[in-house]
């Protein structure tokens, strides 16, 4: 099936149909200072007319001249907040040797406005948390229940480099519906049966060849307007060969080891656990929450932390994202969304660090 066209207003119907089908619709909304992903009950909550200006250590909203709803590259949150929540109960026990799973009710999320980079990131999380011998059952259930409305990205930001990572600006496969936002309509493409059924329930018509052509050239232009590119080097080999590079010291002088990059990264999946008991000691619970390889405790074994220096922790982060992720999960751990650049308080830019590592590897 080819592309369909829907009027801009019809997005409201899309949201209502998803809600009627029992989905909790999550999409971009405006908060005071950033675009936040939150539950939508009405398409009117979408940040129409808002854009963002990003740079290293920089993110600022601005009014646009048009009413575009999805023209604001990646914000501080990612969809992992919903698929792999920041904090979750694993089990409880009454100290008698029986353990009860958290028994959570699986939320049925419809994600509205997933860009190519983030669609790829959801795929990375699925490979890590759902693709091994022991899948995370909570993640798997949430993932299987998803309805995904992707958007092709025609407004990349200054810190974006998805084109060089092969994840955008066009959204790859895996979405139920994919939208391209044009000035007074959306182009829609259904990628699954569920997507086709949903499209049939909203007011649409076949797209004209002019419309599909305009959308295609908007995407091509977007790929060229992207603020950054990952250097074209063999990242996996470069980092595997840079374990003892002196450049890590250089980064460590700037890096605050705050872990912001890992929190905003849509693929960073690491967690730790927390054990709690009530005052009587008869009831115990175990909780899981996000953690980061920048925490000193992260690598703690008896006798101290394996990675106590800042340089070893930055090396772990960058090497995991771009190199050892291949060894562990068969692909890159970075999708080029640029969040870690924008939300780094001192503006460390991984594409820049890679250029410098590549240069020093040549010396």
């Amino acid at each position, binding site marked *: 099936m080819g592309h369909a066209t829907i009027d801009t207003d019809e997005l409201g119907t899309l949201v209502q149909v998803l809600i009627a089908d029992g989905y909790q619709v999550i999409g971009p909304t405006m908060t005071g200072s950033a675009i936040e992903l939150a539950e939508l009950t009405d398409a009117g909550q979408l940040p129409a007319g808002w854009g963002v200006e990003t740079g290293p250590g920089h993110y600022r909203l601005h009014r646009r001249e048009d009413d575009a709803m999805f023209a604001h590259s990646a914000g501080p949150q990612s969809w992992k907040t919903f698929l792999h929540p920041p904090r979750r109960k*694993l089990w409880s026990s009454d100290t*008698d040797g029986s353990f009860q799973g958290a028994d959570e009710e699986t939320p049925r999320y419809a994600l509205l406005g997933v860009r190519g980079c983030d669609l790829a990131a959801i795929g990375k999380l699925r490979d890590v948390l759902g693709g091994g*011998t*022991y899948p995370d059952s909570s993640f798997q259930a949430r993932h299987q229940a998803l309805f995904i409305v992707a958007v092709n990205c025609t407004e990349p930001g200054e810190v974006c480099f998805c084109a060089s990572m092969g994840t955008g600006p066009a959204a790859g496969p895996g979405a139920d519906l994919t939208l391209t936002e044009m000035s007074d309509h959306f182009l829609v493409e259904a990628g699954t049966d569920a997507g086709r059924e949903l499209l049939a329930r909203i007011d649409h018509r076949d797209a004209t060849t002019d419309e599909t052509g305009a959308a295609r050239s908007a995407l091509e232009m977007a790929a060229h307007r992207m603020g950054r590119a990952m250097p074209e080097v063999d990242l996996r080999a470069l980092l595997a060969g840079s374990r003892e590079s002196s450049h890590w010291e250089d980064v460590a002088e700037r890096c605050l080891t705050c872990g912001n990059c890992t929190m905003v990264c849509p693929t960073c*999946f690491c967690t730790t*656990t927390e054990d709690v008991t009530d005052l009587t000691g008869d009831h115990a619970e175990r909780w899981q929450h996000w953690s980061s390889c920048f925490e000193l405790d*992260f*690598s703690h074994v*008896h006798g101290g932390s394996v990675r106590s220096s800042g340089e070893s922790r930055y090396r772990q982060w960058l090497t995991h994202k771009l190199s050892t992720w291949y060894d562990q999960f068969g692909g890159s751990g970075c999708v080029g969304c640029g969040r870690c650049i924008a939300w780094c308080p001192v503006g460390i830019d991984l594409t820049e660090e890679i250029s410098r590592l590549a240069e020093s590897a040549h010396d």
Partner: protein
Amino acid sequence: MTEPMLPVGYRVIDRTVETHDSATIQLEPIDRSLDRFRPGQFAMMYAYGVGEVPISISGIGDDGTLTHTIRSVGAVSRALHDARPGTVIGVRGPFGTTWAPEGAAGNDLVVVAGGVGLAPLRPVVLSALAARSAYSRVVVIAGARTPDEFLFRAELDAWTARDDLDVELTVDQPAAGWDGTVGFVTEPLARLRLDPERTVAFLCGPEPMMRFSARVLLRAQMPSDRIHVSLERSMKCGIALCGHCQLGPLLVCRDGPVVTYTVAEPLLTVPEL
């Protein structure tokens, strides 16, 4: 399928004091039992309200019980070490790779242990003894800081008395009442006459001890893929979900703890990896 993050209740049925800080506990399932553990594999063991840590099996457990030897070094290991018969412990597993001693059949077997590193290797020796004729020579070299710090002391003495097993015990420093070898495990190891292409070595102990021992074996022309080591990293899940146990390309809980020295050498020689 059972939920791998959900512990299964076991009850301590026996406890043996090994040294001033180590004890062996035996556990039996309360309702349901876990799959059988293989030598080298580990369990995630939960002490009520305190926490959960990885502990290798130190026994064979043909009867469905689990045997673990624990050195008390911090809050969780202390609680497990202190657990008296009757105590309920939450256990998950079996996780990780195995020493697979059966794969070494037909070869000489060299087991080198430092300190509590003997615990994960005990099942290797026990299974070799149970199928003794499958192997040529079986050598056990165990080191401890002091004579009082050997695990399984009575068993070590019984092994020493056997003529189908070469056992060498060594302590770091001379001590009153010790007339055995003094020095690190590398010394008796260096004295061994090895047939490098027909030997399989299993090393477990502190990282420097494994590195130095492996170096001795490499110098004796042993190929690095005939040397196996067991790695230790922080572990929160045991099943490749939490990211804590990374060592370069490895998720130690999934790709280890037992790996060949071919894999381990380039990783153990980089500080803070």
